[in-house]
């Protein structure tokens, strides 16, 4: 049978990010997939060499809005290790609270896009309505809704008052109640399951072979979560990675949905345990010198920062590897053998972030 090449992207209604994939088709079945990236390459890694190491916190936040807190967190942790800065316990808990709020809004955004992709408009709106509540918390506590710039070298730029923390608990409880209503639709509705179950299966063996990370790996039965290494205040909180064994689109939806509950729990635990004290310590001494690796769990998976300081205000190198970059090879593994109609689901369930991938 002769094959046909169907171009998917760079812009597509379900994926408002520029990823182009050439799908080699035989009839309705995909036999090969060739990705083309580079549409939004911004050279941010190079830019960090020209900025001072204190300014780079703001540069890395702009790699991606959805996980900006975690980017700044990973960068600050790396610099703090290079300069031997010990941040206060309060700052560690504050970082966890904002990071988990960010994970919640990222997963809500993704669930909404998924609902939109399988044509369930009201579900999409209900999910994004709850996302708005998280964004409102961030606006009230940090001054902006997406890129909130709460991390700084030595701690956090802002503190949370008791009233703000009480309001966060009330809001996340409301969100939990709302999520319980939509959970049944995502996980039990016949039509929704028909679009998700058995689609785009990534086996555990393939997930290991293709070095998959994040919720995608956990949906294939790999209990890997950087938060369990105990960075920041995660070591003082009680949680287990959420996993599923089926490795299909349904499993990836399940993992992300349950991770919202987990984030709510972690926020409540952090607020219950947060100690009094300063939220930032002033740092002094020579600028960073030496090499360091810092890893953090973003909503999409593990991010790695490699920093090399030369003892001046400018870093020699800032290298970051984002989770989508690590997950694209797994996507290329899943596409061949699938039906054309399932491609939007398949691409969406890896939760691609192309601005992260290209930086």
């Amino acid at each position, binding site marked *: 049978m002769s094959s046909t090449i169907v171009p998917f992207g760079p812009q597509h209604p379900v994926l408002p990010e520029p990823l182009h994939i050439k799908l080699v088709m035989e009839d309705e079945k995909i036999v090969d997939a*060739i990705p*083309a*990236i*580079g549409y939004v*390459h911004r*050279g941010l*890694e*190079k830019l960090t060499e020209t900025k001072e190491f204190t300014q780079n916190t703001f540069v890395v936040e702009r790699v991606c809005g959805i996980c900006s807190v975690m980017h700044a967190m990973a960068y600050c942790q790396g610099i703090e*290790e*290079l300069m031997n800065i010990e941040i206060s316990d309060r700052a560690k808990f504050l970082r966890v609270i904002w990071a988990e709020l960010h994970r919640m809004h990222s997963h809500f955004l993704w669930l909404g896009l998924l609902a939109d992709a399988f044509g369930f408009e009201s579900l999409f709106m209900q999910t994004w309505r709850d996302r708005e509540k998280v964004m409102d918390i961030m606006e009230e506590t940090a001054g902006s809704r997406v890129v909130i710039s709460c991390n700084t070298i030595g701690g956090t730029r802002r503190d949370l008052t008791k009233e703000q923390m009480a309001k966060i608990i009330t809001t996340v409880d409301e969100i939990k109640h709302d999520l319980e209503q939509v959970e049944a639709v995502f996980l039990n509705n016949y039509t929704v399951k028909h679009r998700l179950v058995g689609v785009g299966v990534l086996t555990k063996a393939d997930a*290991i*072979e*293709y*070095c998959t990370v994040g919720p995608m790996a956990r949906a294939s039965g790999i209990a890997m979560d*950087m938060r*369990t*290494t105990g960075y920041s205040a995660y070591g003082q909180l009680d949680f287990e990675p959420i996993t599923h064994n089926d490795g299909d689109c349904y499993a990836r939806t399940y993992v992300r949905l349950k991770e919202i509950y987990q984030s709510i729990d972690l926020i409540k635990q952090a607020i219950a345990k947060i100690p009094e004290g300063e939220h930032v310590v002033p740092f002094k001494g020579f600028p960073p010198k*030496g*090499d*360091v*690796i810092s890893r953090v769990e973003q909503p999409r998976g*593990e991010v*790695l920062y*490699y920093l*090399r300081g030369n003892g001046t205000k400018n870093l*020699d*190198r800032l*290298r970051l*590897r984002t989770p989508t*970059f*690590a997950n*694209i*090879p*797994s996507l290329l593994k899943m596409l061949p053998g699938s039906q054309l109609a399932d491609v939007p689901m398949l691409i969406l369930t890896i939760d691609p972030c192309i601005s992260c991938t*290209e930086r």
Partner: protein
Amino acid sequence: MIENLVEITSDQLLAEVQKCKYDGYRFVTTTSVDNGDDTIDIVYHFDIDYKMKNLKITVKKDEEVPSISKVYVSALLVENEIKELFGVNITGIIVDYGGHMLLSEEELGSPMLRQQITIEKRGGNS
């Protein structure tokens, strides 16, 4: 600072990477750093149960480096990236974009290298 960093030569690279695979390590990524002279550091990061192993090679800018993508498929994107942005001559990548995964035809070659760019004045009064 960097745990378990092993310095090797580019000749030893494939054998060491094979050993990592055999030992069950996951490939994390590869980092390249321009040392400011005529050499580049390339660090290969692996992970098993949250413990990292890092293999570091230092190569001349025109030296050939074998691709590890035949051992770890997921290395193909990062190797293409290093090849384009740093101009490292990585050979045998399983999917080689020929220098155009990220960059277009009009781009400067190897934009991540520390290059001295001289802007010449085109005559006229200053």
